[in-house]
């Protein structure tokens, strides 16, 4: 399979791999390793703002790249009830095949599982 330059870059050199711990850290995961796609986000928030983000992913290159991009690009932004960028926009940005839309939804589920409880956290 061919991947876009952006996908390859974030797949080969993903920033934000790992886990966070401590005050204000919220964890969300979705998917299933046995089913081939599993994503976890750790979001450190304070007063509605994302201070740090880390991810783990047992997944395809597209899923790893999108997860890494979200973890990198969302720091400093407000935590909301939606993804920082819509699934459709992420699909366009990373040139994700339509067959893999379900994997972007797993990313969304993992992100929101961590983000929604963090919205009202004030530290």
């Amino acid at each position: 399979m061919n991947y876009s330059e952006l996908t390859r870059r974030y797949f080969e050199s993903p920033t934000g791999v790992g886990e966070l711990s401590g005050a204000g850290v919220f964890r969300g995961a979705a998917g299933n390793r046995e089913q081939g796609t599993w994503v976890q986000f750790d979001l450190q928030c304070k007063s509605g703002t994302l201070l740090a983000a880390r991810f783990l992913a047992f997944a395809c290159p597209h899923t790893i790249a999108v997860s890494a991009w979200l973890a990198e690009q969302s720091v400093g932004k407000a935590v909301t009830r939606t993804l920082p960028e819509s699934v459709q926009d992420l699909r366009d940005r990373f040139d994700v095949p339509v067959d893999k839309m379900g994997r972007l939804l797993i990313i969304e589920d993992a992100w929101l599982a961590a983000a929604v409880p963090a919205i009202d956290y004030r530290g």
Partner: protein
Amino acid sequence: MKAAKIPVYLDHASTTPVDSRVAARMAEILNSETEFGNPASASHHYGDVAHALVEQARCQVAAAVGAAPNEVVWTSGATEANNLSLFGAAQYYRERGRHIVTSRTEHKAVLDPCRELERRGWQVTYLVPDGEGLLDPDQVAAALRQDTVLVSIMHVNNEIGVVQNIGALGAICARHGGAWLHVDAAQSVGKCPIDFAGLGVDLMSLSGHKVYGPKGVGALLVAQRKDGSRSARAQLAPLLFGGGQERGLRAGTLATHQVVGMGLAFELASSISSTETVRVAQPQRRLWQGLASIGGVLRNGSVSHSVPHVLNVSFEGVEGESLLAAVRPYLAVSAGSACNSALAEPSYVLRALGRSERLSESSLRFGLGRTTTTSDIDTAVAVLSREVGRLRDIAGARSGKVPDAVAGA
């Protein structure tokens, strides 16, 4: 590590580079003013010259596999040879029986024709090998029915390199009397000895490009026994009509340069087969030892009943598509999944061996050949050690922390 300009080629089970001597001879024929004739043109000198070249190649192929020259039928490759065997036998013997026996680990060039025959009303028994990929000959014996007309079992498996006991199958089919034995031997030549006559095989598919010969040419061996072991030779209904070439079994003008290339490739392979197999065993051992040291690496297929040219392993804790994408800039290997769509399918061969879907997807097949060096092996081990570790880090599965759901067979 920066990606090499040209990835290390470790996919010889997929295809091999054309031997320079073969390429030179083929080029000679393509450029010749006397060797371009139609081998079927019996009315002039040019046809005679081309015919002689084709017959010399027929002798070379036959000699390499223990067959008689008149048992060689040229085809466009092993896929056509497999199709000719399956459809040809099914069609010819359709009034006698419509049952075929094969295995779940055959090449698609056998399985797909079998499925098509099922759609047309034939019944097919798909035998399941053991966890090492080996068939028990008794399984074949038990599957035979009165209406069985063909047994199709490959010699060397293309994904895991496992060698089946063809001699035993030949004896079983001979005792049955009505079931012809077809063997896909596309992966065998140059890797292990083949004695077509001695194995009791009725039909055998061969490929040119797996043996450092050209693509686009192969052969089907059709036994013409005179030893009385069978009441008659296997009969086939042709797939192609229009000229009666190859004793009416395969119509169409022969490509002299392709046929000559395959003949020379088989002769060369035959002359170095035993020494090459011994030589390849050393880098294969080095590769396996290096990969095993990574940890969480499982070898697929029998170790004792396999050719050293193929090594198939599964990596725990990494996702299959990511594994292939990670090594692709550095290594040319085959994945355990068929990436012919956005969503890969796990290897049906490994699934038949009982491997989990995840481990089947996270497998790689290494095909070693004449050009494989120790340096190639060391590069492969270094790349895989680094990339598997990186992907396990991303998956949170490093240092033996392989999630239970991912580990295991």
